[in-house]
């Protein structure tokens, strides 16, 4: 165990490691602040920091297209829509309201359970395997390779996912209709 761990550290770039732990630390802190803050808008902003940290992690993995998409979709659209919803509805906009409920322990247990499941799955699935990244071509970019793999190799799952999203969209419209 110790030997393989050491080999892993040797194989990785030191700067990459430092950046990973800095990003991960910032993400964990922001995630904690997000669920403990008393202000809904602040919570949304802490969520933005967590999502930006995830984008940073993608850049560390040389997946810059995914990183930019992460910022575009999650920070640029989803959190903005959340804020928009907060502004439009009569959600408590100030500080000091009681945002807590008595499901704290239940939530903690579920979070721990999810962490355990994901951790064990990753450990079982990828233990000791070397994951081949998509090769970087075209002047330091693998965007073209990602495009080919989505629209060529995985076109059916891609289309199924888009139909699913379309169904969700239509469903939302039907629910939101006035009559």
């Amino acid at each position, binding site marked *: 165990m110790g030997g393989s761990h050491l080999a892993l550290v040797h194989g990785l770039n030191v700067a990459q490691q430092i950046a990973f732990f800095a990003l991960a630390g910032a993400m964990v802190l922001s995630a904690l602040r997000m669920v403990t803050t008393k*202000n809904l808008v602040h919570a949304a902003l802490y969520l933005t920091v967590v999502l930006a940290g995830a984008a940073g992690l993608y850049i560390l993995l040389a997946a810059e297209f995914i990183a*930019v998409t992460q910022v*575009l979709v999650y*920070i*640029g659209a989803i959190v*903005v829509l959340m804020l*928009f919803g907060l502004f439009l509805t009569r959600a408590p906009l100030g500080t000091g309201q009681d945002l807590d409920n008595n499901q704290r322990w239940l939530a903690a247990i579920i979070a721990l359970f999810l962490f355990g499941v994901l951790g064990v799955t990753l450990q079982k699935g990828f233990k000791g395997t070397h994951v081949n990244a998509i090769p970087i071509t075209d002047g330091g*970019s693998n965007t073209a390779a990602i495009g080919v793999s989505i629209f060529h190799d995985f076109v059916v799952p891609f289309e199924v996912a888009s139909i699913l999203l379309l169904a969700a969209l239509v469903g939302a419209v039907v629910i939101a209709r006035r009559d």
Partner: protein
Amino acid sequence: MPGDPLFNNGLNLAVALIVIIKAIIVFVVVLVSVLFMVMFERKVIGHMQNRIGPNRAGPFGSLQSLADGTKLFFKEALLPAKADKRIYRLAPILAVVPAFLVFSIVPIGGTITIAHHVTRLQLVDPPWGILFMLMLSSIAVYGVMLAGWSSGSKYPLLGAVRASAQMISYEAAMGLSIAAVVVLSGSLHTSAIASGQHGLLHFRNHTVPLPAWNLFRTWVVPFIIFMIAVTAEMHRPPFDLVEAEEEIAGGFNAEYSSLGFALFYLAEFMNVVTMSGVTVTLFLGGPDGPRILGHSVGPFWFVLKLFAFLYTYVWLRATLPRFRYDQLMDLGWKRLIPASLGMLLFVAAVRTGSRGWVIGVMVGLVVGAIALMRALSVGARTTEVEAASIARAGRRA
């Protein structure tokens, strides 16, 4: 070869120095161009409205924006009682930083050689290229939204709500019309997008006496959609509902004074300059143009095209009345997004070069357009009926 050739031989002190110098130059140029743009806009609007415009500070009033900036700098920075202090201070920065950064990906010329190092006339040429612009414009929404919210008063909040809805709606149309360009150039590098528009236009083995700019290669429509979407994205007139003075007292930045206000002002005008630069790069060939006296003068053509756009934005402001909010949303969602989606499909079909795809897509677009018209007319009728029933209920009460 996309990417900046500066880094081909690894990183050393000279390369780092060149990058730093380029960054400073871009910073200064953008800042000076904003000072110029403020003066230009006030002068041109003045002349269009048959008055003189600023003419006191400096020759022809050219130092007016400098004087305004200095005045704002020395004013008292007010903090509203109900404001959220940290976010109130953060918001102007969130507005101005993306506006600055967008210009870093705009190519203003080919390559130059500084001390045996070949480099592009643009600050960075990242592989995510044009997506970077979309990313920054989606971050710029935060500046406006948080400014409105953190001011802790009603009108700024209304301005922020308007802004976020408007910017999100038009981002979709903007992204789709950029996608049409990316389909043609086959690269996200802004340098590759610009250099792909070199030469004369080819159409079915014929050479058309037009430049091969994306404006023509994408059949003009995406360019028009992009221009409208960008105007809305920058909340320039006629889409300046974000700060409609008559309705919401100046909108999201009503509570700002001094430096905070100056930063929003700076961001607004900087966006005009940088987005004009992006438009030139995407649709008008960037620095492409004929040689003069045997020299390649990319930056000259770039600045010339940039000026055309700056003038157009001022012209629009002086000419068009402001949209109503429902008109704005109708235009964005019911006209521009379907049209840009259709044009994307059409451009992609033409790019495949097979007649079957072109005919198939065209038939599909006609069917889709008919279905959309029908849906819109049904929707309009329903709205009318509802409005009438609400009015009747009002009379009865």
